């Protein structure tokens, strides 16, 4: 009976171990090893930090990296600013059926592929697009305007694709805030701003943190939105990784880039979790 139990345990362990070692752990170990190997002659490699040195020597590489990180922070802050009033409205000012409908409406667009949503933004923003045509026909602009292929377009798209991951944790955390707390804040003579700063935001902090962590992580790793809305000027780090791997076939440098991205991404997630004292499990589920 006991040995039967052990057999069952091993049978259940097998898929998990195969999955995690062959598809997650070993590929990452391999990536680290490759990033640390330098080509001295064709087919001859030595261990060293040359690929990382290359990253800091070539301005294009670390500019792209810094730019991606700054844009991700910016997109995270903007997403928070745009999502917060809506989340507050849904959680605190709506009731019953209307509330659940509004909440579901926030989720719906994100069931659709990111490519479809980006296509929508291309049609809206391009020179011959909907907004440009509207501006010309109403006389607000003399000539057609190209709204695509610039930094603002990238940000609009990034914020758009992140909203869901901010609205949901915010609504969830604001839902548990007792209305009486807000009333008490006003009764004690606080202004709207005081109540927001002293009561609402502190209460929503877990939601703000987990939303921001997820949004930052997804933005940093995004590929479709910056490359399609930014065009040739997008200079996004994931695109640089793709170029090294697929176009240039420089896998050693590409691996080093991959590790840098992974380090920043995991570092931010880890710091965010430590700051907000949450576990990965709760953030992922939210």
């Amino acid at each position: 009976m006991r040995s039967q139990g052990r057999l069952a345990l091993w049978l259940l362990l097998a898929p998990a171990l195969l999955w995690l070692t062959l598809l997650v752990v070993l590929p990452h170990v391999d990536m680290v090893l490759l990033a640390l190997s330098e080509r001295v002659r064709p087919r001859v490699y030595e261990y060293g930090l040359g690929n990382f040195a290359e990253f800091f020597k070539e301005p294009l590489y670390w500019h792209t990296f810094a730019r991606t990180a700054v844009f991700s922070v910016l997109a995270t802050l903007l997403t928070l600013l745009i999502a917060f009033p809506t989340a507050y409205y849904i959680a605190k000012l709506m009731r019953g059926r209307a509330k659940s409908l509004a909440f579901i409406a926030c989720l719906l667009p994100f069931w659709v592929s990111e490519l479809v949503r980006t296509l929508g933004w291309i049609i809206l923003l391009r020179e011959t697009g909907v907004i440009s045509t509207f501006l010309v026909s109403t006389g607000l602009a003399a000539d057609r305007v190209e709204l695509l292929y610039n930094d603002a377009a990238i940000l609009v798209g990034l914020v758009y694709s992140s909203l869901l991951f901010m609205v949901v944790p915010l609504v969830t955390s604001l839902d548990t805030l007792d209305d009486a707390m807000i009333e008490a804040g006003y009764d004690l003579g606080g202004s709207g701003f005081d109540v927001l700063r002293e009561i609402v935001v502190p209460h929503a902090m877990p939601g703000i943190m987990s939303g921001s962590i997820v949004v930052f992580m997804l933005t940093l790793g995004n590929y479709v939105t910056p490359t399609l809305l930014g065009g040739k000027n997008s200079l996004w780090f994931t695109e640089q990784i793709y170029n090294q791997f697929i176009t240039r076939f420089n896998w050693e440098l590409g691996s080093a880039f991959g590790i840098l991205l992974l380090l920043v991404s995991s570092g931010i997630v880890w710091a965010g979790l430590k700051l907000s004292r949450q576990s990965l499990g709760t953030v992922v589920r939210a």
Partner: protein
Amino acid sequence: MIPSIRRTTLSRFVYGLYIAAFFVYLFAPLVVVGVFAFNDSRFPSPPWQGFTLDWFVGTAPGKLGLFSDPALLRSIGVSMKVAFFVTILSVAAGLANAFLLERGRFPGKGLLYGMMLWPLVIPGVILGISILLFSSNLANFIDDRLGIEVAFLRPGIPLVVLGQFSFITSITTTIILARLKKFDLTLEEAALNLGATRAGALRTVTLPFLKPAILGAAIIALLMSFENFNTTLMLVGSQSPLTIHMYGMMREGTTPVVNAVSLMLILGSALLAAAAAIAGSERRR
């Protein structure tokens, strides 16, 4: 509404306006994608040239509709194939993982659970390249030592399936595990007391209880596989799935046929979302 707090009509109006603008922002891209699928023009942009169904059923050269565009149909076929295997594999593995985490007793279980969630915080591009280089190195090694070329370790459909499986399994595991945690073990004991075998109790009591979660996990897996881009991009071979094909079309500039495909995708995801919602409400019961 918090009635005791007085707000001026103006502030209420401005706030309402903001919420309206928010929802316009949320739905405008999807609406224009749908509308311009029916525009009788070569480009998916204004002006409106009249209503047409050509981008779905057209057969004229240069005005090929979705249902007669062989490259597009082929890519949809590839996506379906990939999604089919990813769904079967990730739901099966998720089911095993859920039982392992809920019923198994062994050292390092917490660590294993953490490892299972890890793929969700690895950027998809990184997951793709790490699997690409590991499988390529493995294939090169086998080729060098044994002189055998292992085709499925080279970029192509099997590798895309494995790449997507590597993170979708994390999701199916959490969905099925959440349901299994709510299962009342005495039900299984009752079945055993009444003379059922272990397998019989599993089949007639536990699995039916898990059915809504298994169904929900399968729908999510199907959708995530069909829509995945980042991981797939790095592992794709000569046969492109739909998202990769669409990306190429959008980069080069395309006819509204891409809108027609997108509209189908919107409708498809809406159907799946509804199905998942039904499975979800059953799960909570």
